[in-house]
């Protein structure tokens, strides 16, 4: 779609675009190009000598077991976040869709965690589940469950999954509510007349018709788990115990800024870039086109 009418000026559009172009060139494309370059170089710790090493950084990266482990951690983490985040919010949205009066009331009470910063969510859940003073940890101990996220990596993973799901629930909920509301009432009424109960109607009509929303949220939740949960991990577990909750983004940060391995960190950045590009392409290609009814 294009405008048929436009303004004539050879310089004005460039002036208008200048601020945005300056910002993206200086802070996006230049650093991204640097990351690409550095991923092919090896620098000593003082930055005095630079050597071209080709794909050696990548080879080392994929030989490095801690990196492969971080990949696996990220995969498990994002699968859990997406599964529980989508499942719970879908359940709440399906029930909220049944409420005639008070949808806005429930919505108001369910959407505000979106506003909570991931870092604050991490701190709050850390406090709730702290093995020595946390109230939820205390209840778990009382129930005979030896909860300790500082030593047990499954517990640490559960902790960051809960914090991440809690934070993302409101977002998924809003999209499911909107999706459910856009399903024509007549379809559901027709099924009800044919004798289908609420349970059956949900699985045979509403759930299939929601598939574009669900798929969209799946992509969004994976992106969220990959990239936006750094603060939760840093605040709640610091990647521990050991490196068992060090997701990829955490590892890039740690290797680049704490361990000062520039080449390795740059190679990791490039791998992450490839992941974002793939996810974005999936999002734009398939969402709302392929998954349809």
């Amino acid at each position, binding site marked *: 779609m294009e405008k048929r009418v436009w*303004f004539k000026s050879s310089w004005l559009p460039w002036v208008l675009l200048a601020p945005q172009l300056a910002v*993206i060139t200086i802070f996006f494309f230049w650093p991204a190009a640097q990351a690409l370059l550095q991923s092919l170089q090896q620098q000593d710790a003082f930055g005095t000598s630079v050597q071209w090493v080709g794909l050696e950084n990548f080879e080392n990266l994929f030989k490095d077991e801690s990196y492969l482990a971080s990949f696996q951690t990220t995969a498990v983490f994002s699968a859990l976040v997406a599964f529980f985040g989508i499942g719970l919010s879908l359940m709440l949205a399906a029930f909220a869709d049944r409420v005639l009066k008070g949808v806005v009331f429930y919505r108001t009470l369910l959407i505000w965690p979106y506003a909570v910063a991931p870092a604050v969510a991490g701190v709050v859940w850390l406090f709730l589940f702290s093995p*020595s003073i946390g109230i939820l940890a205390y209840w778990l101990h009382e129930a005979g469950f030896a909860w300790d996220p500082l030593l047990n990596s499954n517990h640490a993973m559960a902790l960051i999954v809960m914090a991440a799901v809690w934070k993302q629930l409101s977002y998924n909920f809003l999209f499911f509510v909107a999706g459910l509301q856009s399903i024509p009432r007549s379809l559901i009424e027709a099924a009800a007349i044919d004798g289908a109960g609420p349970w059956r109607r949900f699985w045979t009509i509403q759930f299939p018709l929601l598939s574009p929303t669900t798929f969209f949220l799946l992509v969004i939740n994976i992106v969220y788990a990959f990239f936006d949960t750094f603060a939760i991990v840093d605040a709640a577990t610091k990647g521990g115990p050991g490196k068992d909750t060090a997701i990829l983004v955490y590892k890039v940060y740690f290797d680049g800024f704490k361990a000062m391995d520039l080449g390795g960190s740059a190679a990791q950045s490039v791998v992450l870039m490839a992941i974002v590009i793939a996810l974005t392409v999936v999002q734009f290609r398939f969402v709302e086109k392929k998954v349809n009814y």
Partner: protein
Amino acid sequence: MIERNRFLSILTHLVLILGVLVVAFPVYVTFVASTHSMEDVVTVPMPLTPGSHLIENYRVALAGERAGTGTHAAVSRMMTVSLVMALAIALGKIAISLLSAFAVVYFRFPFRKACFWAIFITLMLPVEVRIGPTYKVVSDLGMLNSYAGLAVPLIASATATFLYRQFFLTVPEELVEAARMDGAGPMRFFKDVLLPLSATSTAALFVIQFIYGWNQYLWPLLITTEERMYPVVLGIKQMISSGGDAQTEWNIVMATAMLAMIPPALVVLLMQKWFVKGLVDSEK
């Protein structure tokens, strides 16, 4: 609702109320912890009703008069930094996206498509994938520990530009023709016609971007080394002692958590309509 089923109605409300309670519980505990003395908070189990130290805790947090380990920066200062950063990011994003969308839609010039795609591609380059080199650029420009360093690198916005472009494309052509016939230049048209027409989109974007700005963590973590430039979201993390629970003043930390949550939560609740619109629009 289609059938009247008492059991189902009760179940519906039960599930929803349970959902609301589970979602609210962490924040309730945070609030309760922020109203107790340090001794009470570290008692096991912690009391679940508010205590009497509310004003004292928030005053200590805001003034930065804590005794324990970790940063001692005043939370009032952190809140100011966060507010300036969030406003600069939100308004900056809106301003530069409006201008670039206007240029791309209402002018014809060489490389127009290329410019639009260049902006759009930044969607694929979040801070997380280029942290090292971006840090270096900001440090070379001398922008570490400054408001400019906190905000400017984050104000490019593919989504906002895209949103405004989509919106401008739906604005009737007759408006441009009429404006031109009345002798209005492009900037006049932009200011008097497009800006008022985009008010709804702008309000929606503002809510989303304000929250985005307020909640930034990784970027401030990289470029602020001085306590006076900590946003509250980063500062709260620095207040937690690595020495374990005994050394962390959890009551003050939780008061800070409440303070860090209130501004963005208020924005969401008070501007709920715009918030929902903003979320849905910016993901299209």
